[in-house]
């Protein structure tokens, strides 16, 4: 039997079956093809919509200024140039900012996730008085906009003092405003950026881990903390990884806390937020004029797109490799209220 024969026989068989089912089979097949076609168009459109700004930025970043003013050139530059990247790299002070941001993001993420894991485990596995109250506090903390407390936090750390001891001794309070210490203290106290969310996620995860292992460990005489470290922590690797990634990424792009507490140093996020205003003076200095020059608005926008690309490039690379860790652990928590 040749190949075409088998195909025709399969068609014949299909039509016989279709006849037997009273036309239902054909209708169902057409429906499913139609549905997957519509689904493809919908999803393609939406994915394109999400990716479009990045693609546009990439094409703009390689354009020369002539290409931008040229109405014929729309998305593919007539010649590829990398000058924008050089300028944006310098304007962002990328090399300093990258190191600072990387160090801060990693350390802050580690501290925050370690603390949130402890707290989340405590909420998931132990019964103690006022547990509901404290958990309500976690939820309330998620709700408080950081702007509400920003003023008093600012003053709190501007005139920092522990119970007035320092003022008693030296007559002055400590100005912690330009040091990184306050933010690490806040991270230690689980009150950093979106920490309530991490506590919530980690608690959900631990609640779904079966308790047998833990009980066995208790019976064998392991203390609660050691049980946590040796038995439960390895179980919780996926959620800890994803919370770490979230903390890292959100810290990377955060402006609010960074500007408030880490103001003294160069960070990618803060220099990006002031990029459009500062780029003129940077270019002026780079050309040896010593004075800021007025760049055409189109060029500022172009450089800004390039700068955005530079800032998010490490995150995109991270996401490409750790995509599963980001997405799957959230689904594994089985969130319910």
């Amino acid at each position, binding site marked *: 039997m040749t190949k075409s024969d088998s195909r025709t026989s399969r068609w014949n068989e299909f039509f016989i079956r279709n006849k037997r089912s009273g036309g239902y089979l054909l209708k169902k097949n057409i429906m499913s093809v139609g549905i997957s076609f519509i*689904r*493809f168009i919908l*999803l393609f459109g939406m*994915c394109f*919509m*999400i*990716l479009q*700004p990045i693609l*546009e*930025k990439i094409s703009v970043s390689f354009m020369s200024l002539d290409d931008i003013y040229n109405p014929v050139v*729309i*998305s593919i530059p007539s010649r590829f140039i990398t000058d924008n990247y050089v300028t944006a790299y310098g304007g962002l002070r990328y090399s300093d900012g990258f190191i600072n941001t990387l160090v801060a993001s990693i350390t802050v993420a580690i501290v925050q996730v370690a*603390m949130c894991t*402890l*707290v989340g*485990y*405590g*909420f998931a596995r132990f*019964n*103690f008085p006022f547990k509901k109250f*404290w958990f309500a506090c976690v939820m309330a903390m998620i*709700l*408080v*906009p950081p*702007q*509400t*407390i920003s*003023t008093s*936090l600012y*003053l709190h750390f*501007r*005139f920092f003092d522990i119970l007035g001891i320092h003022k008693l001794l030296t007559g002055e309070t400590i100005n912690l405003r330009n040091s990184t210490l306050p933010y690490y*203290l*806040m991270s*230690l106290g*689980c*009150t950093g950026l979106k920490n309530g969310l991490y*506590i919530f996620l980690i608690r959900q995860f631990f609640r779904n881990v079966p308790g047998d292992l833990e009980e066995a460990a208790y019976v064998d005489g392991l203390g*609660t903390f050691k049980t*946590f470290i040796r038995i439960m922590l390895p179980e919780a690797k996926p959620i800890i990884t994803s919370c770490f990634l979230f903390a890292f*990424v*959100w810290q*990377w*792009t*955060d*402006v*609010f806390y960074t500007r408030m507490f880490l103001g003294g140093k160069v960070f990618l996020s803060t220099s*990006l*937020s002031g*990029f459009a205003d500062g780029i003129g003076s940077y270019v002026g200095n780079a050309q040896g004029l010593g004075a800021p020059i007025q760049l055409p608005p189109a060029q500022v926008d*172009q450089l800004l*797109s390039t700068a*955005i690309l530079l800032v998010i490039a490490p995150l995109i690379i991270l*996401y490409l490799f750790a*995509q599963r860790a980001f997405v799957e652990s*959230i*689904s594994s928590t089985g*969130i*319910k*209220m």
Partner: protein
Amino acid sequence: MAAFKRKKYVGLQKRKAVSGYLFISPFIIGFLVFMISPLIQSFYMSFCEVTVGAGQFDQVWVGLKNYYFAFRQDASFPQLLTQGALDMFVYTLAIMVFSFFVALILNQNFHGRALVRAIFFLPVILSSGVMLGVETDNAVMSNMQAAIQASTSTGTSITETIQIVLRTAGIGVRAFETVFEIIDNIYDVAVASGIQIIIFLSGLQTIPKSMYEAAQIEGCTAWESLWKITFPMISSIFLVNWFYTIVDYCMRSDSAIMKKIQGVMILQLNYGLTAAMSWIYFAVVLVFVGITSALISRGVYYYD
């Protein structure tokens, strides 16, 4: 014997309670020091005239003056507040609908599902923090978009025609206008719904397949099983997502009201007024969350 057992149990429970408190103690300390005390202080400050001098700051009690100023004398605050609350409602609803819809699609089996899921989750990473603020007004980008649109469209677009038809129908024009506005800003909605999609998806995957099969054999259409099975089974997820969406929306630093508050703090250096305004905003958000969550939690169905 019994008494001994009971005492032992109490002892273990006590020990567990103590270790529980030890585990959450970082949060308690942090919450009291960095959350409660600034909250109280900022609440107090909202009734004060605050001046920051060299080495110290003074608070002078002025009563409700700051609140009075925010509502009666500030030109833009009341409008921004009502607009912000309305936007919050509309956008939370839109994000919920959109993310539920996308999650339903992504829950089906097709090739490239993981890729699509990854793309939908991408904005969670890329559109956070600073990116929200700097991305909005970029003339080159919008020019480019307009050029692409002009080069691809053939005169009239379908959505525009539909909009015109619906407008001329004359019924419920204001409701339509809201829908049109959301459709025009569908990018913002899509960008804000990454986490919600994943949460919905995880909820959808916990529904046993056997339920749908049983319903199908009994003659239930897909539409009916959506309402009779899917909705009740994931109604608790709706509550979670609603909560998350509101919080996420009102934390966004690029909203007009947040910008206004930060402007008052940084430009006018009026800390008392800043505190008053942010407390008003916080109260509005709290009331909104409270009412809507209470309404939704009435409809939540717990299977187990």
